[in-house]
């Protein structure tokens, strides 16, 4: 079973990202769960969301404390939240930042998701962009499934733009490697 934790701010779509990832895994023929941290939801406040992916039906219902992967949608959270708390030793972090390198004590990928989102979506909502980057870094689901899940989540032009943002971020990470 793979467990992923998303860190974001209320209103940035971390929960939607977790759900889109769960849907993508489902399109890949896997079982999945996507859910928010069950806490207080406030716009702008640090929030978390989770995804579980497995080859068999997922019956575990607790929150995630030892994720395999962490996605940080806003580098500003790094000073407020210990984003790598409980992360497995060989875990991976993907951070939205303009910095090229970052040492969080774990294998870390960086991407300027805000730049990509502003460029393609025109707004600094980075959830789909970060999802593309995350898949570029980890390949835990196929980018085609992610795009399909995005198109099914956001209708019409909005969906197309978000799918494009995910793909650009995906390729940006792939080209770095």
């Amino acid at each position, binding site marked *: 079973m793979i467990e992923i934790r998303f860190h974001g701010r209320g209103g940035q779509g971390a929960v939607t990202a977790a759900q889109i990832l*769960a849907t993508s895994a489902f399109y890949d023929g896997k079982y*999945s*769960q*996507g*859910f928010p941290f*069950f806490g207080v939801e406030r716009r702008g406040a640090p929030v978390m969301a989770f995804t579980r992916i497995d080859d068999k039906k997922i019956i*575990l*219902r607790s929150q995630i404390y030892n994720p395999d992967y962490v996605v940080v949608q806003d580098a500003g959270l790094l000073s407020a939240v210990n984003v790598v708390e409980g992360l497995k030793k060989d875990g991976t972090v993907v951070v939205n930042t303009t910095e090229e390198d970052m040492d969080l004590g774990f294998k870390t990928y960086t991407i300027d998701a805000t730049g990509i989102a502003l460029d393609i979506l025109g707004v600094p909502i980075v959830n789909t962009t970060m999802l593309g980057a995350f898949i570029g870094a980890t390949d835990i689901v196929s980018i085609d499934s992610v795009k399909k899940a995005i198109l099914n989540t956001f209708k019409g032009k909005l969906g197309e733009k978000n799918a494009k943002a995910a793909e650009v971020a995906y390729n940006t990470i792939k080209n770095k490697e």
Partner: protein
Amino acid sequence: MEKIDIITGTTAAAMAAKLSNVEVIAAYPITPQSHCVEALAKYVADGELDAEFVKVESEHSAMATCIGASATGVRTFTATASQGLALMHEMLYIASGMRLPIVMLNTNRALSAPINIWCDQQDSIAERDSGWIQIYAEDNQETLDSVVQAFKIAEDEEVLLPVMVNIDGFILTHTVEPVAIPDEEKVREYLGIYEPKHAYLDPDRPITQGPVGVPECYMETRKDLNDAIEGSREVIKRVNEEYYKLFNRKYGNGLVEGYNLEDADTVLVAMGSVCGTIKYVINELKEKGKNVGLLRIRTYRPFPKEDVVEMLKDANNVAVLDKNISLGFNMGALGIDVSSVLKNKKVCNYIVGLGGRDITPQDIEEIISHVEGAKDGETKWINLKE
């Protein structure tokens, strides 16, 4: 054709109500309401569901409207949670007393004070004696299936009682996971049209519903009501089997589900989504060579007394988990019920997950190791901060 979609528990319930072709939905759309009626409002607005959606000014009115609608003889549905259910309290007794087969989704959430919108089962437990059949689903698939089954059970002429399908707030209501959605035509054919013989509105055949029940007849109607809910066990079991034949999914015998009970000296008893986590721990322990069982109570009212006795007959350590607390008894409702039907057996009670406190596999392991060394009748609050 059945299709699989990845949806939340509340969406699953809304889809089930739509598949069941409900005719009237009444709801009060404010916190602590869930997405369920929001989804249903959209189905109605988009013309996907031909139902009357009544926006009311409180949950008390929501249930009152459901009672009025159901009394005219139409299939009726609503959804609520925590304080909303508490506000319905008075009307719940009227719905069951008038023998109206209303189906309601309750998303289990704590009761204030302090203010808390998160999961526990105190809300529905507080309505235990209201004459409503109570089903607790473990996952989103069971949520959908249980809502459809609930109409079949409620409208059965042997039963004619309202049914409350309970799902854990957030844990199921806000989690997306794959759910098989049965074919609409097939569900509608299975349920048929609700055509009550006992309670209906027909100007050509006027009747009086909800009359005064004087001391000369009130007690008899209460006995009738009790006989109906007692008798509903067989109907719930039958519906579970019928549903399995048609849709290929069943939940234990409809009342209880045993998991790894054979040769299990220690058995946990629980309701709702925590049963998934318990099964997860049981599987892990089994790999390490330790055998622990689970008895999941799916139908809490009517209480499956005989099944509990029969399925726990070989267990020596019974640990009952409760997401509620009977204040002044230091036990949860399920713990009290299980203790009352099991004679000469060690039963311990564990208060868990109140107000959204997460229940982890470690908590379950702690319960297992505690009950094995505990004395009969102990109550322990789990994962309580110092």
